[in-house]
């Protein structure tokens, strides 16, 4: 992967440097490791301050694993993730806590994200209570403040999650994420479990909050249309690797990788030419195809695609693709 990204940039908030996450496959009586699932297989990118970075891909592409790495839910196998220039895998206890407050997640399922036995106020206050430097009153005031930011009312604080609709629940999740004044929010499929007529509202709200607070988003979704609408820059993932990345406008106007093209066709239902319908199904990260993982499904596959893994190359400023079609 390109090592020249290491050039220090004040604008960069989060930086991935050749990050890998392998899960061992254990089998047999004594749980011997028989191989690895290469969930994330060497990805590098950076998220800048105040931008939305979109990560798009289908099942098993590693986009959710990536978010787990950032959230310290899973340890990184190799490579580095830098936040404000600091490696997140060896932070001191207090740095770790500060990092956790700066990076907050919002998950896909608004029902599962909220403990049915906790009041909204308890749910939102949870990340604040870990700090131990705020009084009860301060915490409560902050809870009411973020509720309002997320488009809810202060009297909602004393209710339980089941008293809200799906869209409102997702707002509660958002309010919780905002409570610690984070610099980065990881949005993992934030709208895909919502009803169609509510989605637009949520997307608008997310964009408004970003404009107001200047936070960065790392947006993870399978729907390219949503990703393009929301993001400043985009990375397309396929079986653990980034196959194309760039400015979202550039990516839309000058789509390079055949896989991205197919995703576009599917997202905007413009697939009237048969070539854009891919044969087969998404490869498994357990036993991915040789060379370019995409080659068995690729309409442009060449003999060398089977043998040589294409590297991510800049094809125009800021626009990179991992494909042998581009020299």
């Amino acid at each position: 992967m390109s090592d020249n990204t290491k050039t220090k940039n004040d604008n960069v908030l989060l930086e991935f440097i050749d990050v890998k996450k392998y899960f061992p496959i254990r089998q047999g009586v004594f749980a011997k490791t028989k191989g690895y699932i290469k969930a994330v297989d060497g990805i590098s990118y950076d998220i800048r301050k105040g931008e939305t970075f979109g990560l798009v891909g289908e099942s098993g592409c590693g986009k959710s694993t990536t978010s787990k790495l950032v959230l310290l839910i899973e340890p990184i196998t190799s490579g580095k993730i830098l936040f404000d220039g600091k490696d997140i895998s060896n932070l001191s206890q207090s740095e770790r806590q500060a990092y956790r407050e700066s990076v907050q997640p919002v998950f896909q399922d608004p029902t599962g994200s909220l403990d049915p036995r906790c009041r909204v106020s308890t749910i939102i206050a949870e990340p604040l209570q870990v700090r131990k430097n705020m009084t009860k009153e301060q915490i409560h005031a902050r809870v009411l403040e973020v509720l309002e930011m997320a488009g809810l009312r202060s009297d909602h604080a004393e209710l339980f999650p089941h008293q809200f609709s799906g869209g409102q629940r997702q707002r509660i999740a958002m309010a919780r994420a905002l409570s610690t004044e984070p610099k980065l929010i990881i949005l993992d499929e934030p709208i895909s479990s919502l009803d169609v007529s509510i989605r637009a509202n949520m997307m608008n709200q997310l964009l408004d909050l970003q404009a107001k607070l200047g936070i960065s988003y790392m947006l993870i979704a399978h729907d390219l249309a949503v990703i393009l609408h929301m993001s400043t820059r985009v990375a397309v993932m396929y079986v653990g690797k980034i196959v194309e990345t760039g400015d979202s406008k550039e990516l839309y106007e000058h789509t390079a990788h055949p896989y991205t093209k197919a995703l576009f066709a599917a997202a905007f239902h413009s697939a009237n030419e048969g070539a854009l319908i891919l044969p087969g199904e998404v490869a498994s990260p357990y036993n991915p195809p040789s060379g370019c993982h995409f080659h068995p499904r690729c309409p442009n596959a060449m003999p060398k695609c089977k043998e040589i893994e294409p590297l991510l190359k800049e094809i125009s400023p800021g626009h990179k693709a991992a494909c042998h079609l581009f020299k």
Partner: protein
Amino acid sequence: MSELANSHLLQVIDLKTHFFVSRGTLKAVDGVSFYLNKGEVLGIVGESACGKSVTGLSLMRLIEPPGKIVGGQILFNGEDLLKLGEKDMLKIRGRQITMIQQNPDTSLNPVFRIGNQIAEAITTHRKLSKEALNEKVIELLRLVRIPSPEVRALDYPHQMSGGMRQRIAGAIALACDANLLIADEPTTNLDVTTQAQYIKLLEQIQSETGVGIIFITHDFGIVSTLTDRVAVMYAGRIVETGPTKDLMEKPAHPYTRALLDSVPKPGSSSTRLHSIQGGPPNPNKMPPGCRFAPRCEKVKPECLKEYPPEVKINNNRSASCYYVG
């Protein structure tokens, strides 16, 4: 309704399916009328719980308690299905009307081989010799593009991917050359690229077999590629219907328009989307007038009083809204 009622493969008139639960009566489908011509593809579009899936199941008369079809007519080839005995209905299900369900992970029986499951769909309605049956199973597997069908017929469902399982569901649906296929969000749980593949497959099968399809979905995008006509459902009723292209270009009902506007378009980057306030009504407590009125930007006093009548916009388009016509 069209005066050519007799030429319709299916005509549904004022269908009502209610669920009698302890909280009250949920009017999941509350007076739905539409028709489908032979070999036509009709899309039924709506959000979750708008009654679109219940409509599909009602057509097959597979509503389970506490649900019940409480009124209306389902004319299939001119015959009212709601008047048939259960025994006659068995001859229609699988033979003439068939269905593909939403979830590929749970829609096939996990303990039987897929070949047997397809064969059963055939033998339920026809007696065939063992060789002929085998041949037909393989032929069906080919029809849905399963590679090396002779081998895969011996697989159990869990040995296949979601996309393959959904194609098996298609093979089962097509086993007896049915005239009407109800596809209830068959692609919702599939990967994006697999989804496109599946839609293409349905298109090809449709043109090969001439089967009439009712495609139930929440996604206008799929509707635009696959269907000839579309009916938009909201809170248990059809609010607007018409030829797909026409309807999507010039939506008449405010709900349809709002839905279409709320989806990001190519190149719409970072602009505000048109959003609909509030959420769908509780099926337990439907608003008295137009069900969309509480969320509608153009609401008029009469919208809140009485449900707007269906207004004909032109020969094959109509909508239920006081603003139309």
